[in-house]
């Protein structure tokens, strides 16, 4: 598996500094699970964070702070080993954590033409959803307001920007008008994240793209 489409520096730095919304953290973590190149790149941004911390002028802590820490490390409760995270050949572990541990547990809702989607429970500044696109089906253009990231987890799709297979992530800003078409060989499953806030009511439905409206 050779990944051709990677995360941007800005997303990696945002993930490293902890300033991205939860939905973005999720898709970044999912891509990192599949891509050692970006994992190494992220680690170099973490190294910058380490140097920033090292160079921070220290703020003295109270005497009780060390006492409290000593109590914590001497505390009788041994740390429990981290639970073994479930594994799945399609969904990386961070995505599994949001769907109940298995692809079979995803609560798909039909979006028409065989396309299905499932919205994942993240904080509201950005939204994440899984998309299921039958082989060969074109997803009508669903213009978005802000940044939209799409990570392929199964199958592949092609659009004006290129060909995206498992592990590839498309980073599209609002200028990109794309019409993704799932590859004919296999049904396509993607994780898609957008920073446009969820709109459940109050606005007129946008007739041009009723399709993936959430």
């Amino acid at each position, binding site marked *: 598996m050779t990944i051709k489409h990677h995360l941007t520096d800005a997303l990696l730095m945002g993930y490293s500094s902890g300033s991205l919304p939860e939905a973005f953290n999720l898709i970044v973590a999912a891509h990192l699970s599949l891509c050692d190149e970006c994992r190494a790149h992220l680690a170099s941004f973490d190294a910058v964070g380490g140097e*920033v*911390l090292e160079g921070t002028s220290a703020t003295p*802590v109270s005497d009780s702070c060390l006492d409290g820490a000593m109590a914590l490390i001497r505390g009788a409760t041994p740390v429990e080993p981290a639970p073994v995270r479930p594994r799945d050949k399609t969904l990386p572990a961070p995505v599994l954590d949001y769907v109940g541990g298995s692809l079979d547990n995803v609560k798909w809702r039909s979006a028409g033409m065989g396309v299905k989607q499932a919205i994942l429970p993240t904080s509201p500044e950005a939204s994440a959803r899984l998309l299921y696109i039958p082989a060969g089906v074109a997803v009508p253009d669903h213009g978005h307001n802000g940044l939209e990231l799409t990570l392929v987890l199964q199958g592949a799709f092609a659009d004006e920007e290129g060909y995206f297979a498992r592990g590839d992530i498309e980073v599209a800003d609002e200028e990109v008008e794309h019409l993704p078409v799932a590859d004919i060989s296999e049904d396509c499953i993607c994780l898609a994240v957008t920073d446009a806030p969820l709109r459940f009511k109050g606005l007129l439905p946008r007739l041009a793209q009723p399709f993936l409206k959430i």
Partner: protein
Amino acid sequence: MVALIRRIRDERDEDAFVALFNHYAPRVKAFLMRSGADSALAEECAQEVMATVWHKAHLFDPSRASVATWVFTIARNRKIDALRKQRRPEPEDLPWGPEAEPDQADVLEFQQESKKLGQAIASLPDKQRELIEKAYFGDLSHSEIAEQTGLPLGTIKSRIRLALDRLRHAMK
């Protein structure tokens, strides 16, 4: 610093812990306060971060991270949890095997590389260095971060990449 973590891991050495605490707890406190925590919350988090260092000392890999970097990632996760009340999705764990003890030469080289990175950041023009600090304290929006360039990350990244490849290879 790496030696202190080893003493914690191998001997549960409390003196080593106190030395690490005295160096990092005040920095972690400052980091959290600059990110918006009040003094009491920042101390509470600093305490927990340092306790995590103690409990997870066996997971620290000095061929892929400096102690400062490791403490930073723990503090950052604590910040997201305590200040933003959010989950932090983490990548799938790397396969970890019996050959977890890294080669001493790799450790040395990596730690030197980290030092060089620190020096390179320190010698950046004030304005750029302040922007980077702001990014890590959470004071920059995504589009402001997008304009960040010129960080000298090539060498340290390729070194980490090699360490990852070795780890993957060891698992096969």
